[in-house]
């Protein structure tokens, strides 16, 4: 069973030989792992896949390879490690900040300057062009080199809401959504149109799956009401997904949102989402999701990075893998992996406990 077959079997709600796996890393964790595995460095690792050689993913026997186009690449824009701030092609200004862990220093980035913060800026704003051929060179290479063996995912999260908050500012965008629908719609349409075209272009090039996403969940509840989500985001996502299926009816659609989103899951299924990611176990109960939605939806993620992976023991990690395989992974329908990029605070012992437990636990051994 090759990697593609493993993923396809799981997504068809059947049990493959073992649970398919996808793991992503921050650049710092990737560098530490490359040293541990004595792999030649591949340059700066992009957790969203853009520009990667996939040496790490292939050495770890992961089953799908990610290739990203879109605003999300601003998070690890080339050169971010050497500067305190930078601007992406949308005009969003990012800050780069250092943090320290017991395993060394890392840097991450966060948007802080918003080109549409001023109301008047909306009138003259021109977003980047999503049809530039150079945006797709990486995806084409990934498909050419790896499509026979691997499940290739076109990555376009921060699809509408998150990119719009980068453009307008988080609080102002939410205030617009509550008080000024015309303005909110205008801001949301910039990333919606851009990422719709990007996703269509990736589907035309032959990716197996498109990964959409917008964080609409917090740790304990949704960030916005289901009603507001239905007003602004559901119709756009539905239209985007329908446009992708018009190009390739077989395309699989994964959707990323952190946090709690129980109230909208039936509607995510209704608009054509096949796979929900990342299933943060400290926010949503994976077993409950499997029971309520497991016959209509697949899941991707579910390994806790808020507690178990950074702060647990290797035994805790092993136990969590087995628990997931027996619950949310029972009967297939799960691509297992950490619920976000592994960060520098995760001990390598825990990382290897996760990889080994996944790889050394055939589905057949669980009954």
């Amino acid at each position, binding site marked *: 069973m090759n990697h593609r077959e493993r993923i396809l079997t799981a997504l068809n709600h059947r049990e493959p030989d073992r649970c398919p796996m996808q793991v992503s890393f921050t650049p710092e964790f990737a560098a530490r792992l490359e040293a541990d595995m004595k792999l030649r460095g591949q340059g700066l690792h992009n957790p969203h896949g853009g520009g990667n050689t996939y040496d790490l993913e292939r050495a770890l026997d992961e089953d799908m390879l990610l290739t990203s186009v879109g605003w999300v690449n601003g998070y690890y824009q080339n050169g971010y490690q050497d500067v305190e701030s930078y601007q992406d092609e949308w005009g969003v200004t990012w*800050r780069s*900040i*250092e*943090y*320290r*862990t017991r395993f060394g220093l*890392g840097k*991450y980035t*966060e948007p*802080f300057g918003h080109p549409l913060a001023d109301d008047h800026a909306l009138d003259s704003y021109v977003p980047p062009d999503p049809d530039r051929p150079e945006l797709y060179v990486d995806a084409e290479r990934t498909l050419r080199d790896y499509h026979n063996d691997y499940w290739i995912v076109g990555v376009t999260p921060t699809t509408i809401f998150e990119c719009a908050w980068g453009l307008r500012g*988080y*609080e102002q965008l*939410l*205030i617009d*959504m*509550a*008080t000024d629908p015309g303005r909110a719609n205008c801001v949301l349409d910039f990333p919606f149109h851009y990422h719709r075209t990007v996703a269509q272009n990736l589907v035309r090039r032959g990716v197996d799956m498109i990964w959409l996403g917008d964080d609409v969940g*917090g*740790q*304990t*509840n*949704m*960030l*916005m*009401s289901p009603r*507001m989500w239905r007003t602004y985001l559901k119709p756009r996502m539905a239209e985007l997904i329908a446009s992708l299926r018009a190009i390739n009816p077989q395309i699989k659609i994964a959707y990323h949102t952190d946090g709690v989103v129980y109230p909208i899951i039936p509607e995510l299924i209704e608009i054509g989402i096949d796979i929900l990611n990342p299933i943060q176990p*400290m926010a949503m109960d994976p077993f409950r999701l499997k029971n309520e939605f497991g016959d209509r939806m697949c899941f991707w993620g579910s390994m806790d*990075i*808020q*507690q178990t992976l*950074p*702060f647990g023991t290797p035994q805790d990690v092993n136990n969590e893998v087995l628990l997931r395989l027996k619950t949310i992974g029972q009967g297939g329908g799960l691509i297992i992996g950490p619920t976000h990029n592994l*960060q*520098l*605070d995760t001990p390598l012992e825990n990382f290897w406990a996760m990889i080994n437990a996944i790889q050394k636990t055939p589905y057949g051994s669980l009954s």
Partner: protein
Amino acid sequence: MTTLDDLCQSVIEGDRGLAQDLVKKAIEENIPAERILKEGLIRAMAEVGVKFENGEYFVPEMLIAARAMQNGLSLLRPYLVSAKVQAIGKVLIGTVQGDLHDIGKNLVAMMLEGAGFEVIDLGVDVSPEKYVQAAREHHPDLIACSALLTTTMPRMKDIIDALKENGLRDQVKVMIGGAPVTESFARQIGADACAADAVSASTRALELVLELKKG
């Protein structure tokens, strides 16, 4: 409906223009500033908290209510000062060193202000030294620390240690919060409380300040 009822309702509905007009009207009616604060603005934000806990309000509704409350408060502030109305307590709030996330921290700050606290917001990426320096300068009752990331959570312990080293820990309560932060982590690092969201942060803050004042 009295003017204060109308004011309360305008804040709950997030109508900042109306909230300002009604604060002006209440002042013109010679309603004491403290009553306008407590029976108009603070009552409204308490109701907003209840609606949040009941799942009726979410972040956008809280934001517009808080904005209306702040608009009203800015007009009322000079009257509160001249009437020598004291805040319930003083809070220093910030996102810890190495962390730039401020959505949760800002919501907590708004809810604390709406509960009658004086809030001094130190911003993001706040070092333990900066907390200590601000604590010396402002003499807060409560220090509130936020972190979104597991990689920056450990800085919360550094803040508590720095307060201890500088002899300030006994004079102030410490509350922590943020997505990965748990009660057991709070106990482990010696914080006084952990809050899961902005509304419970405001409830816990009131309890902590009461405890502190009782000694």
